[in-house]
């Protein structure tokens, strides 16, 4: 297969289980249906086969990867094939002793998420009293000599706190701060009414993070990810379908993105059935949206099609019920009115509360 399709990153979703209940969680709404189907040996084989395909970055994530008691063996195996290994965690449940054990195994980076800058508001989003414990874990990460990424998912309740978040990241000596606006898939879409910010909030937040970015250059990497609900054109979701990313779900499905298996009509294969290379190369689900043949107008004749690949397939499906539509986030999409009305709604206060993530399928709105 040509270099056009070379995976650089493997996202290993080790489990969908998690003690937190974040209202923006990107796991599928019906995540309870997917059990942990892969054992240690399966995952180690996936890591080896991914590395042979060209993968150099590994994200150990979930759900909460710390719930796997073979995490140690997985890190060791990942480093044995020289993958840059990043643990993406809520920090719960974790003891300092266990974290210290991961250090000599070669874990390269630890990413800890917090939901806001103070316990009440952070815990309200996470659905669990976790904030103080998370800060403690972040401190251990640095004390033990790991690089620390601090991740904060942004929405209307915390967008006004950028300066405080940056100050907290500095106090924790984070090496990288990810200020990532919510992507409205999974639980975030269920809770969109309560999460979507206004344009004014975003502008303010963008200014604050740009200032922090400039001030901290060379010291801390500050990354601000815009929500595509407020961009003229969509993002190149996953750098294009089946181009750079491989996601493996807890039950072993090989996917081009976190939510692809929730799209009806697409066939994805399991790492237990075929070698990863064969799945990457010719599984129908991967090939469905590679190239340009599937594209409708206005994408088909748009000069940006090689830049954003028509946007996010999952967003297209969840908003229009057609996964092959132009992403409605694009201002050229015939369905862009769906985004405009959501923005309009954001101007008035939400009328309902949050629906917390639970293994029971949520009632779709």
């Amino acid at each position, binding site marked *: 297969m040509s270099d056009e399709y070379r995976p650089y990153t493997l996202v290993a979703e080790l489990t969908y289980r998690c003690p937190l209940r974040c209202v923006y969680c990107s796991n599928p709404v019906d995540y309870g249906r997917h059990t942990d189907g892969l054992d240690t040996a399966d995952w180690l084989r996936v890591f080896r086969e991914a590395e042979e395909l*060209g993968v150099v970055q590994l994200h150990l994530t979930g759900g909460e990867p710390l719930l796997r008691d073979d995490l140690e063996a997985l890190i060791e195996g990942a480093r044995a094939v020289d993958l840059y290994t990043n643990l993406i965690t809520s920090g719960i449940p974790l003891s300092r002793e266990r974290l210290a054990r991961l250090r000599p195994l070669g874990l390269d980076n630890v990413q800890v998420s917090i939901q806001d800058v103070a316990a009440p508001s952070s815990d309200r989003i996470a659905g669990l009293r976790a904030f103080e414990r998370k800060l403690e874990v972040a401190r251990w990460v640095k004390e033990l000599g790991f690089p620390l990424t601090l991740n904060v998912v942004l929405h209307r309740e915390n967008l006004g706190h950028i300066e405080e978040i940056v100050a907290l990241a500095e106090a924790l000596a984070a*090496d990288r701060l990810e200020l990532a606006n919510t992507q409205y898939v999974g639980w975030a879409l269920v809770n969109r009414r309560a999460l979507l910010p206004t344009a004014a909030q975003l502008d303010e937040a963008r200014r604050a993070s740009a200032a922090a970015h400039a001030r901290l250059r060379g010291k801390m990497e500050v990354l601000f990810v815009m929500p595509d609900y407020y961009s003229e054109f969509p993002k190149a979701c996953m750098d294009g379908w089946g181009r750079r990313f491989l996601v493996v779900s807890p039950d072993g499905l090989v996917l081009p993105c976190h939510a692809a298996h929730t799209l009806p009509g697409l066939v994805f294969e399991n790492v237990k059935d075929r070698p990863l290379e064969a799945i990457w190369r010719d599984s129908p689900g991967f090939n469905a949206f590679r190239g340009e043949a599937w594209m409708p107008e206005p994408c088909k004749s748009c000069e940006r099609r090689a830049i954003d690949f028509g946007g996010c397939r999952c967003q297209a499906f969840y908003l229009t019920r057609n996964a092959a539509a132009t992403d409605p986030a694009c201002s050229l999409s015939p369905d862009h009115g769906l985004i405009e009305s959501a923005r309009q709604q954001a101007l008035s206060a939400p009328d309902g509360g949050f629906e917390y993530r639970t293994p029971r399928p949520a009632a779709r709105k």
Partner: protein
Amino acid sequence: MGTGGRPRVIALDSRPRLAAKARIRFDRKTARYLLLYPERGLVLNPTAADIATLCTGEHTVHAIVERLAEKYASQPREQVEREVMSFLATLAERGLMQGEP
């Protein structure tokens, strides 16, 4: 931190060391070295790979220039020095150096 976009001045007697988060690995697919860090990677040309490999905190910038000038003897020494300086500045700019260069 660089002030107002002025290029960093890197002292010849400083001993550059890659940040803890950065790691070099060889990429069989492209036969190049990659400098990996969280979520990202830099593709290194052969000179950059040599420089990065020497950023261990043991060698001074001066010594790194010497080494490279020896290895790439066909190139003028000033050019090698310029390349070393600009690559070290790039690394510092991206936060891939430990402490201040």
